[in-house]
Every structure is written in structure tokens, then in C-alpha cells.
């Protein structure tokens, strides 16, 4: 694949040694999706791990130019299928901002409920995969048990467990089904002790903490320069959350805290901070869903949007706080039914670009921890 670097001879103590070039992926149990790393290792210690992406490139951005605004909504799920609601929401928001469409209030509440439930399930998957990569299989299954319940709830809501296609330009496709509010409340009541149990099991475990504390710390300046977003950025100490600082939807009416990494074990911005920031965000999302369910009033959920959607000429850059961070959608319209350009800038792309630098001097086992803590999913990187 164009990486014309050969094993370099290293002279040390009069012995001729060689660096080992290892290939990690594209099929590997612990790369999150189809990712490939070319690792130059000196025994267990890595000199450099160069990522090689593009295995999951599906040219989604070009497809947007062909299928039009309405037709693109199911494709947005596949941009990040672990947290698909946010992709739906950001595409809908971009089109609404272009055409100045106002979403009914109940529609916004439905969006936030669905999105925050999706955030919980995405963070559960991320934390669980991280513990599985570190070697503990039990928290993985416990987290997925809870995630199954969220999948069931969202299946009640929109019929799908992973690629939801729930939102439409102008609102959401369907209102909450009867009984959904009670079921969600029952789930949230049941979920909080499960989360406490998860923490009991793994978050304080000495072996786990030793594995990830102090590994690959990222300073705030470097995180900003490399365009890290979301929990990765907050773990490095930068207190920024799109929901609070560039508010959209009905987030201004909801109360929530934004967890920021403090370096409580190890250095600020290390893998443990990234992990614990996500776990704390789950608690915040639970509270957000509860607030939404209380504040919702009956009403329409979908604004009237013409079938042939022709927004005026213009361009917008919409930012949404996805599970993986601030997802930016740059949509350019020329007045026709098909967008001129739809560029999706995702958090995992920047995180992936940082791995080469973070991996210098780490051990092979740490590379796995770093990839898992940065919460990289392959579809976001390649689109």
C-alpha cells in the first residue's frame, strides 16, 4: 500500500538487531472495525504505528450528491452506525438551517430523547470494548446486557436496532409509541444500579487502572491542535461541549453537567481520563432523558416539508455533539434537489490521525488500549 519502508538495522551494544514490522489488521479482534496499522516495533516497544485507513470507504459523500436531501437520511446512519441518531440529527439540522425550517417542539424533544439514549448505548459499547481489549470479558457482557435493553427501546421507537433512520428533515418520523415513556423510565431506574455494578467491577480494579492510567496522555494544546473532539478533548481538560456552548435543539432548556478530565489517577488526558469522562457522560445522559420525558408536551412531531426539497443557494456548517464528539457537517446547496457538497468531519478521523504520534514509545498492549480509549470506529474514519 505504498509504505516503502523496510526493516531498519539498529546497532546497539555491538549487536546487530532489526526492527520488526508487524501488520495489525485489517482483520484483528481489537481494532474497532476494519482498520490497519503497520507497526514498527523493537521487541514489545513500538517505534511507530502508522494507520492505514480506507478499508471502509463507501463514498457516502458522493452518494449524497446523487440521492438528494430526503433520500440521504438512511445513508447518514451508516456514517457512524454505533451512534446513528446523531448523524440523522445533524443532517436534518443542516437541511433545516439551509431552508429555514422550524422543527416543532415535541419533535425536538423526541430527537433529544432518542439521541441521548443512543449516546448511552454508544458509550456502553465503547467502555465495554475497552475492557474487553484490556482482557476482562465480564464487564463487556454486562454492558451489552444493558445495551440490549436500549436497543429494544429504540426498536419500539423506530423499528431498527442499529441504523435507525428515525429523524426526518423537519422533525422525526413517528411520535413516541404508547407506553414508551413508562418503559424508558423503568429502564433508567433499572440501569443506574447496573452502572454502579459496572464501576464496582472494573473502574477501580488495580490491574485495569495500572494498564490505562498514564498511557498516552494528551495535553490540551495538542488535543486542540490535532482537532480532537468530544470526550477525548474533554479528557484533556478542555471544557467544551457543543450542546452547551453552541446550543442547538432544546438543550438550552435542559440542565446537565459536562464532565472534564482531571487526571485523578495518572496524568490528565490519559486513557483513564477518556474512559471515565465517557462513564460520567452516561450518567448525564440518563438525567437528560428523564428531564425530556418530564418536559414533553403533546403536539406535532414533523414540520411540513415539501417532497421535492429545494433549499435556497447557500452553505452551512452544522455541529452536533455526537457520542464521539463534535461532528461537523458542511453542506453546500445550489438551489437544486441535490446538494453540491456534503462533507462530514468526524471525531474519529482526527483521533486516528493522532495515533501515529501517540504511539511512539508505547508497548503493543498499550496501542490496543489507546485505540479503544480514543473510541475510534472505522465507519466514521472512512465514510
Amino acid at each position, binding site marked *: 500500500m505504498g509504505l516503502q519502508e523496510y526493516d531498519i538495522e539498529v546497532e546497539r551494544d555491538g549487536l546487530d538487531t532489526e526492527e520488526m514490522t508487524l501488520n495489525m489488521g485489517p482483520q484483528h479482534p481489537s481494532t474497532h472495525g476494519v482498520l490497519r496499522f503497520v507497526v514498527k516495533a523493537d521487541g514489545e516497544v513500538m517505534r511507530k504505528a502508522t494507520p492505514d485507513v480506507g478499508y471502509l470507504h463507501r463514498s457516502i459523500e458522493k452518494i449524497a450528491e446523487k440521492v438528494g436531501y430526503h433520500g440521504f437520511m438512511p445513508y447518514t446512519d451508516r456514517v457512524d452506525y454505533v451512534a446513528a441518531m446523531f448523524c440523522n440529527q445533524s443532517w436534518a439540522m443542516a437541511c433545516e438551517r439551509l431552508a429555514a425550517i422550524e422543527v416543532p417542539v415535541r419533535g425536538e424533544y423526541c430527537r433529544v430523547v432518542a439521541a441521548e439514549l443512543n449516546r448511552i448505548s454508544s458509550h456502553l459499547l465503547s467502555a465495554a470494548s475497552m475492557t474487553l481489549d484490556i482482557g476482562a470479558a*465480564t464487564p463487556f*457482557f454486562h454492558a451489552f446486557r444493558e445495551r440490549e435493553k436500549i436497543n429494544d427501546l429504540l426498536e419500539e421507537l423506530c423499528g431498527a436496532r442499529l441504523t435507525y433512520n428515525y429523524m426526518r428533515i423537519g422533525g422525526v418520523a413517528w411520535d413516541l409509541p404508547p407506553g414508551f415513556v413508562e418503559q424508558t423510565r423503568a429502564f433508567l431506574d433499572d440501569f443506574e444500579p447496573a452502572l454502579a455494578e459496572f464501576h464496582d467491577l472494573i473502574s477501580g480494579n488495580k490491574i485495569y487502572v495500572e494498564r490505562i492510567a498514564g498511557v498516552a496522555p494528551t495535553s490540551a494544546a495538542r488535543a486542540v491542535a490535532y482537532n480532537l473532539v468530544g470526550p477525548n478533548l474533554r479528557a484533556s481538560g478542555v471544557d467544551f461541549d457543543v450542546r452547551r456552548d453552541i446550543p442547538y435543539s432544546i438543550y438550552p432548556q435542559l440542565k446537565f453537567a459536562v464532565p472534564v478530565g482531571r487526571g485523578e489517577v495518572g496524568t490528565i488526558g490519559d486513557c483513564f481520563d477518556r474512559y471515565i469522562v465517557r462513564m460520567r457522560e452516561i450518567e448525564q445522559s440518563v438525567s437528560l432523558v428523564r428531564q425530556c420525558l418530564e418536559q414533553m408536551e403533546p403536539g406535532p412531531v414533523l414540520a411540513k416539508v415539501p417532497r421535492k426539497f429545494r433549499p435556497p443557494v447557500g452553505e452551512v456548517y452544522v455541529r452536533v455533539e455526537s457520542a464521539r464528539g463534535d461532528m461537523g457537517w458542511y453542506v453546500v446547496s445550489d438551489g437544486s434537489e441535490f446538494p453540491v457538497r456534503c462533507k462530514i468531519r468526524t471525531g474519529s478521523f482526527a483521533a486516528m490521525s493522532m495515533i501515529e504520534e501517540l504511539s511512539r514509545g508505547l508497548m*503493543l*498492549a498499550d496501542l490496543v488500549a489507546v485505540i479503544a480509549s480514543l473510541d475510534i470506529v472505522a465507519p466514521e474514519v472512512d465514510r
Partner: protein
Amino acid sequence: MQGYLDSLIAAGWFSALPVQVVYAGGMLLAGAVVLFVFILLVAGFTTFVERRIWARIHSRVGPNRVGPQGVLQWLADGLKLFMKEDLIPAAADRKLFRMAPYVVLMGFVATFAVIPFSSRLVIAEMDIGLLFVLTVTSLVVVGILMAGWASNNKWSLIGGIRGAAQIVSYEIPAGLSILPVVLLAGTLNMQELIRQQGWAPWDWTLFANPFAFVAFFLFFTAALAEGNRTPFDLPEAETELVAGFVTEYSGVRYLMFFLVEWGNLYVIGALVTTMFLGGWNIPPVTDSVFLQTLLEFLTFFFKAYFWVFVAIWIRGTLPRVRVDQLMSVCWKYLVPIAFVNAIATALWIIAFPHGNRVVAFVMTGIGAALVALFFSRVAFHLRRSRVRARNQFTLSPFA
């Protein structure tokens, strides 16, 4: 075994053959019986036990289809592995690749020559029994290195080298933590070690003095590391090295590596039982030889198998350590503690040449208190989860 053969020779059997041949033949036969009736069964069944226990820890069910409650799952797995295609990578070193599983198997099966099953059932009662076990298990290192190298796969190589470094390093705390037991008993003979303990907990070496107590934990940790079990399962770390040194193996060769891993758990349990938990000692309840042998066998087996259960339990709970952390735990913590332990035991023996019953009773009390504390925590968690289970949220797919 030897005694039994002697009695047969005295009765007139095998008069034409020299004594050594009779001994060798008898022991080989006994070894074959043990291998096929005991080792394969136990190692195979342990795979099933591990999967069920692991599944319950993960709050799922585990294999329960093949046979009642899935007890024949291991047979099905074994049969499947037997029928798999025998793949050898084209660029692999064929001789070493083929030999490696057998070397590992040898290192494991040979330990059964000295492991006692009851007071009368042991293949060879060697005076250096414990030393023999330690020595022979080192063969496994050679096999792992061979497997890692011969696979012609960089990931296997890393797994093999990690495995070799780990096992060789942890032999030292394992050996050192056996020293207190040997010093207390004055012998390396496994049967003798057991005879010197009694059936009651206060007669066990575990509670004889605080240093033996510490030695028990040291030995168990070091033995887990030798057996490549979590938290020390780096050589086969699935999420990092695909399958470590067994990546390229399939079919029967793969089966042998994993038979060794699970069988090793039983060997660890047997060693722990022999050295610390009183072995097959039973209270004098019966005079019948058959019943005595049966009870002793069952006592020993269940004591040893309990530690298999504990090893599976630990695997379901703890994550994996990193290579440098593994080495630092061994060399910076276990080895110094084991040294201090051994010296302190020697001083203890000088102070109390015939043991100290008071200390034994106190230690037993402490042990019982720890067990009671543990069970109270279990009860607390069970109560809490039963409350949760009653209010558990489930969504029926047909609602």
C-alpha cells in the same frame, strides 16, 4: 504402585521377567490408564465447566444443548477438532511445528506420574516428587517457544517469547514458595507430604504458621502465571495477538495445546491440595479398603477441582496485565516476598521444632473468619441482585 507390583511378584506372577521390566511395564500401564481415563476426561470436562461458569459470571447461559445441560459439549468440540483439516503454513518449519504440541503435552502429562489420587493410588511414589513436577513442567516452555518460532508468524513469535519469559520467570517464586512446605515436612515426596498433614483444617500446612499461609498465595499466583491463565494470559492474549503462539494451529494440534492449558489447572489444584490442604486425608470412618480409597480419591479430587473453579472465577473477573508489569510483579514483588517467607519459615522451625498447635488453631480461626466474611459479602450481593431481578426491565418482543 511399586508396593502393589511387589506383592504381585511375591505371589508368583511375572517370575520370568527381571524386576525392573515389571516395574516399568506396570507403571506404563498405569500411566496409560490414568491418561485415558482421568486426564483426558478431566481436561475435556474442564473446558465445559469453564464455559458454563464463565457464562454465568457474564450473566448469560453458556452451552446447554449438547446432552443434558450441555455436559457432552466438550465431546462434540473434541470431535469437531479431530475432524478439522490439518493445516501447516507453507513457510513454517515443519518438524518443529509438528513437534511442539507433543513437547507441551509431555511436559504436562509427565507430572501425573507423581500426583497422588489416594493413599494407595499413585503411579510412582518418588522421593523427589515435588522437584520432579517442577522440572517437568519446564518442558512446556520449550514447546511454546517451538510453536511460536515454527509458525513463521510475527505475532506467534511475540506470543511464544512472551510465554517463555513469563513461565521461566515465574518458576522462581513458585519454587521459592514451595520451600516453606518442604522445610516444614522435611521431604519432597508427595505422599509423605500428605501423610504428615491430617484431615482436620488445623492439621493442614496452610494453617501451620503464617508464613505457609503467605506461601500458599504466592504459589497460587505463580502457578496461575505458569499456566498462562488470566490475569497472566499474555501469550495467548486474544485481543492483542489474535491467538498468540497457537495462531497457526488447527485441529488436533490446537486441541493438545488447550488440553494442556485446562489440564494444567487440575495439576495446579492437585499441587496446592498436596502441599497445603491436607491432600486425601480423611477422618477414620471406615475399615474397608475400597471405601477408604474411594473416599480419599473423592476428597482429593474435589479439593483439587475447587482450585480449578477458583482459577476460572479469577479469569472471569480480572483483566490482563501488560508484559512489563508482569515482569515487575514477579521480580520486584513475588521473589523478595518468597525469599523472606522461606527464611522466616526456617527461623520458625528453629523456634518451634514440633510445630505449634496454638498457632495452628489461631490460623484456622483466621481462615474460617475470612471465609465467613467472604460468604457474607456474597449474601449481600445476592440479596441486592435478587431485588434487582424482581424489578428487572425487559421488553417482550411480542408486546
